[in-house]
């Protein structure tokens, strides 16, 4: 954690009033500091990871020699048939499970079986119903031990920025599905861990809200450039958002291919009708078959 920033937020009496831009700069500084702390160019590196679970009769192999990496500031998607063990992979990266073989390192440091190194956004928003939206959004930093009051002021700036102004004191059940996902994404974005794991965050939304949220995410991500590993079932979503896509096979999952997505940023929705985009989409479809 950047000490200078800490001091500033703690002792500056004008802190409450400072602008959105400053809040963003502060976050970016923090992230850069963290990235600079390690010399590795990789935010995440997974090396030959195997995993199996005890089934009814025999052990079921879920992951078979998975290797992948996410460079710093890169948006990487995992595409694969459902039930191919993508969520298991997230649990391994997050430290909830230990792989049977292989290594997982985050910013150059092995983190096998260790929690507290990633910011995570689960499939359902999983906002805490007894917390207001602003208190939900600060949860990641609160766990890291920062004071609630200073965090709330920061959260309010951010909520304004992501279109949740006026909902700071609302409870999650008062928000629509899309708004809940925005809050859940903000909770992950404000977490003090640089690498973000997003587990099918839009799968429960209707098609219209979903494309809204994709646009929103692309824009927000392009402004902040965090390292992201993103699980999705939608090829279009993966192509629109990512710098690279890993296509996984059915269970036991292994990497079929890594594909770079060459489109320039900022990306906008027009991309969806670009001929090259359509060609890539067909390529991925062929790989998934």
């Amino acid at each position, binding site marked *: 954690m950047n000490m200078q920033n800490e001091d500033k937020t703690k002792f500056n009496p004008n802190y409450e009033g400072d602008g959105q831009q400053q809040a963003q700069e502060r976050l970016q500084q923090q992230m850069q500091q963290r990235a600079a702390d390690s010399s590795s160019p990789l935010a995440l590196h997974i090396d030959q990871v195997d995993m199996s679970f005890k089934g009814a009769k025999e052990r079921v192999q879920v992951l078979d020699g998975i290797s992948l990496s996410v460079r710093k500031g890169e948006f990487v998607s995992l595409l694969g048939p459902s039930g191919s063990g993508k969520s298991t992979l997230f649990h391994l990266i997050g430290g909830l499970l230990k792989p049977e073989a292989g290594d997982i390192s985050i910013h150059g440091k092995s983190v096998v079986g260790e929690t507290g190194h990633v910011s995570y956004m689960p499939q359902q928003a999983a906002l805490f119903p007894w917390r207001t939206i602003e208190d939900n959004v600060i949860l990641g930093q609160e*766990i890291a031990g920062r004071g609630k009051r200073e965090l709330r002021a920061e959260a309010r700036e951010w909520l304004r920025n992501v279109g949740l102004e006026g909902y700071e004191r609302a409870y999650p059940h008062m928000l629509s599905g899309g708004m809940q996902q925005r809050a859940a994404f903000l909770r992950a974005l404000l977490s003090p861990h640089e690498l973000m794991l997003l587990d099918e965050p839009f799968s429960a939304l209707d098609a219209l809200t979903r494309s809204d949220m994709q646009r929103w995410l692309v824009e927000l991500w392009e402004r902040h450039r965090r390292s992201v590993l993103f699980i999705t079932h939608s090829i279009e979503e993966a192509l629109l958002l990512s710098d690279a896509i890993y296509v996984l096979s059915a269970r036991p999952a292994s990497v079929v291919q890594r594909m770079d997505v060459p489109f320039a940023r900022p990306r906008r929705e027009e991309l969806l009708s670009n001929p090259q985009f359509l060609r890539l989409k067909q390529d991925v479809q062929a790989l998934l078959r």
Partner: protein
Amino acid sequence: MLRRKMVQVGPPLVAVLLLLIVWQVIVSVFDIEKWMLPSPSDIVREAINNWESLLGHTWATLKLTLVGFGIGSAIGLLVAMVLHPIPIIRRAVYPLIIISQNVPTIALLPLLMIWFGFGLLPKIIVIALVCFFPITIATMDGLSRTDRMMLNYMRMAGASRMQLFWKLELPHALPSMFSGLKIAAAYSVMSALVAEWIGTDKGIGHYMLLQQAAYRTDRMFVAIVIVVLLGVILFHAIQFIERKLIHWQGQRSTDEE
């Protein structure tokens, strides 16, 4: 708002009134003796004439109930919270708690009186024991049934055991904790009444016993009404606290609007 209240309270109120009228009519038409079955008006008259001594007895019972309930719930909550984070002990103790729920706790009272004498102590212990089980079990269930997604989120974020408990498991367990408290509240009034049947000189239970010896059925009905009222008041007091504390529930129906 008022209208909705009327719709809610109206039908049961009418049903109770009808029942009372039928009761009154039967008693006077068949000329039933007062010591067999007093009419509702007899009971009300008796309650009014006798209110001063009734108040004293009611107060004694209420105090006994609240002290027993308070101690029992405090211990119940504490035991659940201490057992919860230690899976081995929890698994060892949980079946014991379930089995011991089948012990008729009230039947322990004579035994407790041998050990602790005729004072308030054995009665408080019995009420506390009666409250303890439902609260412990409901709280432990609530604590162990935490939402998996939220739990995964907290753990991946690196939350400590204490943070998990205070920020997730405890608030998540509040609803089931309160259903335990409400069950225990109903039990505690009943147990206080029965405890007062044995060796006291005050309380509604004692009053009932006196009136039984005198064949004053009307006064026994008064005692029953008071016990019911005590139970209802305690239940609603807990429900009131529950609604204040669990403010995020009950508005779920507006989710999809």
